[in-house]
């Protein structure tokens, strides 16, 4: 009866809001497209979009024109009566939803910099100008622009397996990135009157259509980046003759756009694995800065199986490259930067690109593209397939601070790393920022530590997220929040998920098991479109560990970790040996405080009645209460005779028992990592799984048994769990100097 009562309580708690409730309600029901193991199902499909484009960059007017032919393949079982495209540039149209959806107050523009930015933004005539939309035969077709998206109306449904080819002619004004911001745009160099273009999200791009969202239908408001179907690109980019162009894919016409000498250097770079080789030298770039040629040249790039295309163009570019060897195909790691990037960029960029590929490959798969490019664009970090735009500029005199250096290296690792998440493992950034930023920030941390011992990584280690997680919950959202509704973007979508994964790896699953499961996820969803459920399920399925409580706590709530030691009690077995026990009794009695009356009476009552008259003392009143009597010895002997050998052995060892009471004050359930320090200065770490909290999420007690005597107990001594309050992590309590105390001490 009693047992039944207990189990009913547990069940009723579990149907409400137990932290160990399984995620059945949160995750979509597995189906033929995505199975319960977290892998693509037997009928998984994805669409394909191939592009042939002719692009012209006008360096006089800072405009860009494109003629684009898209061939869209419907691999879904559904007939499609319309197609949707992304027009991300339309976020820069005056009064775009992206601009209107942002709040502002007069204080926002109370400094001149913000004011100027706002005026520039309002004045700038950005956004796509769609000149013509036609079918393959050149006949105009119906289309509608809806904010940052565009719908193509099909005369006839596009059925499964069908292809539809159409053309769009467009142009737009390129934004000055330094004045009004943007992931792409140009930077103007006043000194030599040249432009450096980083061009991306620049052509009408097919939206994703899949089994989860149907047509991706979230307008671009600015935070949720994008996702696109994979496809092949054939792109010809016409620029001033003296420009150097870096782009997604492989250059097709090097003989036409590079000098003989540059072609020779390119060949040399393809065999160099240690030191990057200059394809375009600083001297050549400085020369080109002056020439300002008006004739044009066309660079031809092709890229296969990519989800986007981006490029950079400038006459200021210095270009270096070297080879990265892999088990499969080799890759060219390359960098393009103006002279303003030296001496940081020539020294580090390409080498950091190479290191990123090496580190990420270990945790995922061989980098599947032929090139990985880092372009220097000031004040930014933004990723596209095979190419990314990164900040980190030295001072004008060539000096740079340590911060600039680490900032530059971190941003390169991060943006090159994005090739894996989300360019290849193609999650939907407009829905879930953490799926690419979080996973990528986690691998960025691992890569940084391989680049340099104790690299000052900003995110990854558990203790670095503490300040964020213990903050006011009204200003924090769970990780599982749509990209456009996240508060504290960096901590929420980058820092916290990266930390959660690092904790899974170091503490919950262990490195080997985690790495196996993570690699499985990466390989399952390589060149596919995963969802959060696919990630959660794969990590559990491949590791063999139910992590629902972990996903629930870390990804679906804003709880923080704060576990404390509330009490420690020490017990020993009663030996029944009067010699041991009476001595112990004497010792503990001596430690006990005497009450005030006793103390005063000792003085004041000169003699009691029985002290006067010893006749009153029977056998129970003895001079020394701790004296071992023959009677007690006999009793002990009788006790011993009644014991089994096993019991005698246990008595002889003299075990110490410690009951430790833990309290979960933060709410997030986590394993309890408790380290015992013994009087002989040895230590022992014991890990209690998170499930210790499953019946009572606030309090847990546990008895530990040692032969040795414990002198101190420490909770999470290696800062593994992101515990927000450390003062209660030690028994006996220890004062931990704060950062403030340390700084003040150093000053004095």
């Amino acid at each position, binding site marked *: 009866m009693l047992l039944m009562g207990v189990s009913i309580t547990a069940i009723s708690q579990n149907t409400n809001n137990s932290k160990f409730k399984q995620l059945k309600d949160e995750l979509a029901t597995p189906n033929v497209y995505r199975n319960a193991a977290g892998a693509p199902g037997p009928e998984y499909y994805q669409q394909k979009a191939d592009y042939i484009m002719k692009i012209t960059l006008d360096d006089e007017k800072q405009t860009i024109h494109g003629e684009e032919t898209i061939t869209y393949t419907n691999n879904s079982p559904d007939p499609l009566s319309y197609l949707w495209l992304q027009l991300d540039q339309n976020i820069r149209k005056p009064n775009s939803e992206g601009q209107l959806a942002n*709040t*502002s*107050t007069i*204080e*926002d523009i*109370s*400094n*001149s*910099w*913000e*004011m*100027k930015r706002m005026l520039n933004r309002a004045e700038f005539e950005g956004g796509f100008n769609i000149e013509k939309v036609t079918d393959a035969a050149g006949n105009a077709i119906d289309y509608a622009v809806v904010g940052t998206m565009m719908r193509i109306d099909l005369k006839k449904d596009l059925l499964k397996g069908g292809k539809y080819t159409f053309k769009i002619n467009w142009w737009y004004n390129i934004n000055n990135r*330094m004045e009004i*911001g943007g992931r792409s745009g140009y930077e103007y160099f006043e000194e030599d009157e040249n432009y450096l273009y980083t061009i991306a999200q620049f052509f009408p791009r097919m939206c994703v259509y899949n089994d989860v969202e149907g047509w991706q239908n979230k307008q671009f408001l600015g*935070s949720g980046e994008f996702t696109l179907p994979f496809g092949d690109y054939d792109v010809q980019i016409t620029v001033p003759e003296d420009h150097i162009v870096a782009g997604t894919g492989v250059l097709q016409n090097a003989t036409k756009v590079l000098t003989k000498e540059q072609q020779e250097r390119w060949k040399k770079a393809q065999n160099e694995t240690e030191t990057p080789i200059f394809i375009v030298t600083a001297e050549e770039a400085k020369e080109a800065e002056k020439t300002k040629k008006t004739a044009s040249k066309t660079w031809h790039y092709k890229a296969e199986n990519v989800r986007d295309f981006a490029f950079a163009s400038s006459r200021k570019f210095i270009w270096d490259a070297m080879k990265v060897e892999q088990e499969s195909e080799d890759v060219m790691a390359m960098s393009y930067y103006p002279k303003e990037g030296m001496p940081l960029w020539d020294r580090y960029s390409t080498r950091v690109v190479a290191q990123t590929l090496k580190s990420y490959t270990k945790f995922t798969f061989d980098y599947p593209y032929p090139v990985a490019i880092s372009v220097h664009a*000031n*004040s*930014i*970090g933004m990723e596209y397939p095979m190419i990314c735009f990164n*900040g*980190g*500029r030295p*001072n*004008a005199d060539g000096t740079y*601070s*340590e*911060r600039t250096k*680490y*900032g530059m290296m971190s*941003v390169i690792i991060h943006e090159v790393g994005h090739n894996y998440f989300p360019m290849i493992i193609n999650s939907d950034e407009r829905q879930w920022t953490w799926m690419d930023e979080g996973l990528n920030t986690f691998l960025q941390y691992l890569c940084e530590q391989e680049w340099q011992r104790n690299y*000052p*990584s*900003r995110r990854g280690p558990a203790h670095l997220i503490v*300040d*964020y997680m*213990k*903050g*006011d919950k*009204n*200003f924090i959202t769970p990780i599982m929040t749509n990209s456009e509704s996240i*508060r*504290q*973007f*960096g*901590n929420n979508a980058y820092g916290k998920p990266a930390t959660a994964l690092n904790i899974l790896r170091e503490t919950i699953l262990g490195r080997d098991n985690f790495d196996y499961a993570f690699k499985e996820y990466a390989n399952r969803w390589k060149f596919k479109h995963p969802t959060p459920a696919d990630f959660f399920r794969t990590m559990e399925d491949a590791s063999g560990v139910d992590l629902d409580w972990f996903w629930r706590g870390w990804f679906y709530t804003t709880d923080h970790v704060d576990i404390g030691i509330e009490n420690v009690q020490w017990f020993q077995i009663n030996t029944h040996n009067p010699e041991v026990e009476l001595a112990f009794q004497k010792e503990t009695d001596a430690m006990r405080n005497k009450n005030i009356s006793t103390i005063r009476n000792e003085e004041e009552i000169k003699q009691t009645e029985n002290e006067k008259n010893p006749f009153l003392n029977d056998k129970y009143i003895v001079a020394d209460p701790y004296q071992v009597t023959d009677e007690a010895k006999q009793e002990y002997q009788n006790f011993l005779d009644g014991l089994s050998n096993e019991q005698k052995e246990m008595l002889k060892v003299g075990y110490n028992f410690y009951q430790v009471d833990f309290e979960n004050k933060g709410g997030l359930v986590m394993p309890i990592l408790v380290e015992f320090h013994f009087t002989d200065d040895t230590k022992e770490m014991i890990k209690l799984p998170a499930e210790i909290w499953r019946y009572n999420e606030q309090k847990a007690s546990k008895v530990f048994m040692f032969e040795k005597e414990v002198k101190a107990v420490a909770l999470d001594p290696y800062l593994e769990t992101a515990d*927000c*309050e450390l*003062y*209660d992590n030690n028994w006996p309590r220890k004062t931990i100097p*704060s*950062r*403030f*105390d340390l*700084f*003040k001490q150093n*000053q004095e």
Partner: protein
Amino acid sequence: MKKILTLFVLFVAFNGFSHKYYVAIANMEYNEKDQQIDVFLKATAHDFQHLMEMTFKERMDLDTVSQNKKYSSFIESYLKENFIVTSLDQPASFEYIGMEVTERLNIFFYFSFKEVLNPKKIKIASKFLFDFFKDQQNIVHYKYGEQTKSVTLVPALSVAEIKFD
């Protein structure tokens, strides 16, 4: 009377990385021994660099600003004006201790509040960086004894009270 707003043309480009979040975290702790509140305030270094460059209209090297009297006295008064603790409607007196820039791209400021009338009930008003970043959030943790309470200040609500029983 009409007020005229003059705009100057910037001759400094915004150096550093643009990022999508602006958070500063103040860790405050009541120091029983000295009867004062000790604070260390952490912010992203280049956000603060931006503030300095916009104020002085010149390129700034954060690693050396504390050696420059003009800059360091500006920093001190900026903090004093933009991070205010009051108790029983009485502002506590601000004492600046120093700053440091770390490799993790953070900047830390250290200061104390003396003459806090009732350290168990204080009001914190922080407009730190609000003039420069409209998305700026200032998280404040205040530890009194063994308890910690947190508030987050945003431009729309830049004052909050923390009370301990």
